[in-house]
């Protein structure tokens, strides 16, 4: 069949479709979003980028992504912001493919004081900003001070909570205070020596020093920690200086950003691309169509069309990678009924997460019984299958032990969801499973995203599909504040003396092996005692990648923000 005939066929189909719709003329416009269909097999995660091998000198890439909220690394919390910021700035350290901190702008690993509270870091000689100005220890100190400055309201300040005086300054109700800033434990001893003082030893602090909220700020452009950072607009690229592999050359809000290689980049891997265009597209189905037509080289897969995409691109272009996030069914433990462990276990064991995954997420996620993913120091997905895995008889036994045999007398609980097809699917799935296996009924309460978040924060919920996405690859990020009694993010009010005691032992433990073992114990207690969450699925990213590119791959540790390999953009290229 020749191409023109195919085109005529499409034209005829189009006309038929328009006529058919016109005849139907029923005006059905209530729902365009499809229920995801079960997916098939997926590719295994790949190894770290094949650094630089076979890359042509030059070329351009256009990558579909969602626009971030801003350009200020000391304020940002949005994954798209962080993705872009890691392309144009770099911290003292960077995580390698095994999530181990390696020197980036630092010359070597930090030298620690005897009590592990003072970090002395030597910065590499001869570092320059993209505009040619010297990049010094003062710039790194300024970056940290910016994050601790209450007037900047940086959303990830809490990650720097162990830095001496940072919390006190940030929590100052009157805003910026020069005296309080003066005692924040960060100081440039000279141009190449930075000293950071912690209030208490934090074994993960080197990892923290690889994160965006510690990126340097160009002190020659913004001398004070409260100086406003340029907004994401057309003028921003020229108002900033960069120390990452690429620098921002154009920014069109709502449309795109353009990057070019930073001539003063000092990393081992040199960027080869002439230009990277980040095309801001809100809707993944749109970016998927743009990938089909070759308008973009990379796109995130529309989860609602996952099965179709997997079939369409199974041999080329499709890549699945694990993403360090876990979701499940959160339960308000202050609720009289849900306070009973047997009730929580009954709900957990009555849920077939495998089928839920297939029904609502196109099998695009990974069923699990571990809260902390294995790549982040947790257990294997099936580690606690025998305790909390899907088992109807066990679920019914737990419900009976709680005094609600066959569901008799069980109050009607409510599940609070955001109005989206996937959330509706999950809620209806739980509703059906609980009715079928336990004889209990739950109501579904649908609200918009902001209301749902507000209700969660106010602890005004009974059941709540939710979870956690990791900020940095260590189990403490999955536990501290989330499961300790009174933790700032513990909205389900998990309160378990055993967990609290283990957290106390682990938090400042400088014996790394012992620390990790303690966190694994906590992980086990969280899931087996359903302490606020019935664990269900690990998240995954699904990418469409032009096969004629290099470096847009991911390591097994899941460091991507939103684009495959965006944590090491300098390795991107096109084949020779």
């Amino acid at each position, binding site marked *: 069949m020749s191409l023109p005939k195919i085109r005529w066929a499409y034209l005829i189909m189009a006309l038929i479709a328009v006529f058919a719709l016109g005849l139907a003329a029923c005006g059905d416009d209530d729902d365009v979003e499809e229920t995801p269909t079960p997916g098939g097999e997926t590719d295994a995660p790949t190894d770290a980028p094949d650094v630089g091998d076979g890359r042509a000198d030059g070329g351009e890439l256009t990558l579909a992504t969602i626009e971030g*909220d801003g350009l200020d690394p000391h304020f940002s919390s949005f994954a798209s912001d962080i993705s872009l910021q890691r392309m144009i700035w770099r911290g003292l350290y960077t995580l390698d493919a095994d999530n181990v901190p390696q020197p980036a702008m630092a010359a070597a690993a930090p030298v620690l004081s005897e009590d592990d509270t003072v970090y002395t870091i030597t910065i590499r000689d001869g570092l320059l900003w993209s505009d040619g100005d010297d990049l010094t220890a003062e710039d790194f100190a300024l970056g940290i001070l910016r994050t601790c400055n209450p007037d900047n309201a940086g959303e990830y300040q809490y990650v720097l909570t162990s830095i001496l005086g940072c919390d006190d300054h940030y929590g100052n109700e009157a805003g910026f205070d020069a005296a309080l800033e003066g005692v924040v434990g960060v100081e440039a001893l000279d141009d190449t020596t930075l000293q950071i003082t912690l209030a208490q030893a934090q074994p993960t602090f080197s990892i923290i020093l690889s994160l965006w909220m510690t990126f340097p700020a160009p002190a020659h452009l913004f001398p004070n920690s409260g100086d406003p950072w340029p907004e994401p607009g057309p003028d921003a690229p020229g108002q900033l200086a960069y120390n990452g592999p690429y620098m921002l050359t154009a920014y069109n809000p709502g449309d795109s950003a353009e990057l070019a290689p930073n001539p003063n980049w000092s990393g081992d891997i040199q960027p080869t691309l002439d230009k990277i265009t980040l095309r801001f597209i809100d809707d993944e189905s749109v970016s998927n169509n743009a990938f089909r037509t070759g308008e973009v080289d990379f796109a995130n897969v529309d989860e609602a069309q996952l099965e179709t995409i997997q079939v369409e691109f199974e041999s080329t272009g499709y890549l699945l990678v694990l993403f360090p996030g876990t979701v499940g069914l959160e339960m308000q433990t202050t609720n009289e009924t849900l306070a009973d462990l047997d009730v929580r276990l009954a709900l957990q064991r009555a849920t077939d997460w495998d089928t839920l995954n297939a029904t609502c997420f196109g099998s695009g996620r990974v069923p699990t019984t571990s809260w902390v993913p294995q790549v982040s120091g947790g257990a294997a997905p099936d580690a606690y299958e025998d305790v909390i895995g899907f088992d109807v008889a066990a679920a019914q036994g737990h419900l009976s032990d709680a005094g609600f045999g066959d569901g008799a007398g069980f109050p009607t609980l409510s599940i609070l969801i955001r109005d989206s097809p996937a959330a509706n699917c999950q809620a209806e799935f739980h509703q059906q499973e609980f009715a079928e296996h336990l004889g209990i009924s739950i109501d579904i309460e649908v609200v918009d995203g902001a209301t749902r978040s507000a209700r969660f924060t106010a602890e005004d919920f009974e059941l709540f599909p939710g979870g956690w996405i990791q900020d940095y690859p260590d189990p403490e990020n999955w536990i501290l504040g989330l499961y300790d009694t009174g933790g700032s993010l513990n909205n389900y009010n998990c309160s378990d003396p055993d967990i609290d005691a283990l957290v106390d032992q682990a938090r400042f433990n400088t014996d790394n092996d012992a620390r990790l073992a303690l966190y694994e114990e906590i992980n086990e207690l969280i899931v087996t005692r359903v302490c606020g969450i019935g664990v269900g699925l690990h998240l995954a990213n699904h990418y469409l990648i032009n096969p004629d590119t290099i470096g847009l791959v991911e390591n097994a540790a899941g460091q991507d923000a939103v684009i495959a390999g965006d944590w090491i953009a300098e390795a991107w290229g096109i084949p020779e």
Partner: protein
Amino acid sequence: MTGYVIRRILWIIPVLWAVATVTFFLMHAVEGGPFDREKELPEAVKANLAAKYNLDKPLVEQYGLFLWNMVEPITYDKVLGVGLGPGKLAGPKLDLGVSFENGRQVNTIISEGLTVSVQLGMTAFLYAVVVGMTLGVVAALNHNRFLDYLSVFFSTAGTAMPNFIIAVFLVVIFSVQLGWFDVLGWEFGNYRKMVLPIISLGTLPAAYIARITRASVLEVLGQDYIRTARAKGLQEWVVVLRHTIKNSMVPILTVMGPIFAFLVTGSFIVERVFAINGVGRHFVTAIGSRDYGVIMGTTIFFATVVAFANLIVDITYAWSDPRIRYK
């Protein structure tokens, strides 16, 4: 007429004040705020963000600040790009505040998106008027014949199909399968990026205008003065153009005002499907994210456009029907 126009413009001020006031208090009454995220922020962060955007102040004080930023008198050195010299014109500041998402000025956000939305909206409006009126007139002149049925079919189908259905169909067939047009973006003068968004956005109003035009022209064709014009031996095109269409315009103009306002203020659906950076998407996304600054800005902007579009329609009535005079 001049007095009427001035009075109408002055009336727009209290209308906008009422719109702004109702929107402001409704917006704050809705549960959830701009810093309620999927991933919760610690209390200290929320407190600092609230202070940064004045949300820690009493609601009435926030309202007062908003109004003051709008009406605060300042002098302008230039208007619409035309230099006036330093401090030559005094007027309200019209500062709509900042976006709580990215800290950008709402005025800037709207003006950036507006250029694209106006280009898209104007061309879609032109398409809607030309196609809609042509179909309507042709249908009326061929009443109960094939062309009439064809026109009625188009207007029924166009009205029944939501624009996201049309847009997705067009993209899948003409971009993905046939490769005739691009999926992404809008570029004035580049047909690959213009045709599909225009058709997607303009088809519903075109269908609506076709229906109104057909009904209106049919009514005028039955008037005595049309029979008289034909009896006088006027050529048919003169009868149609000078006596029929012009006298059919009042109901068509009535719907054109809201259609114009609707089209030039952007379409969330069409802008989303074609990843067009217009102002339309801000109407919807700002509500979902409780971006108070953008909600207020886009609402006031939309109300302003609707008010002025209706004023223009009222003025054009007088041109269309000499019996209408404003005092």
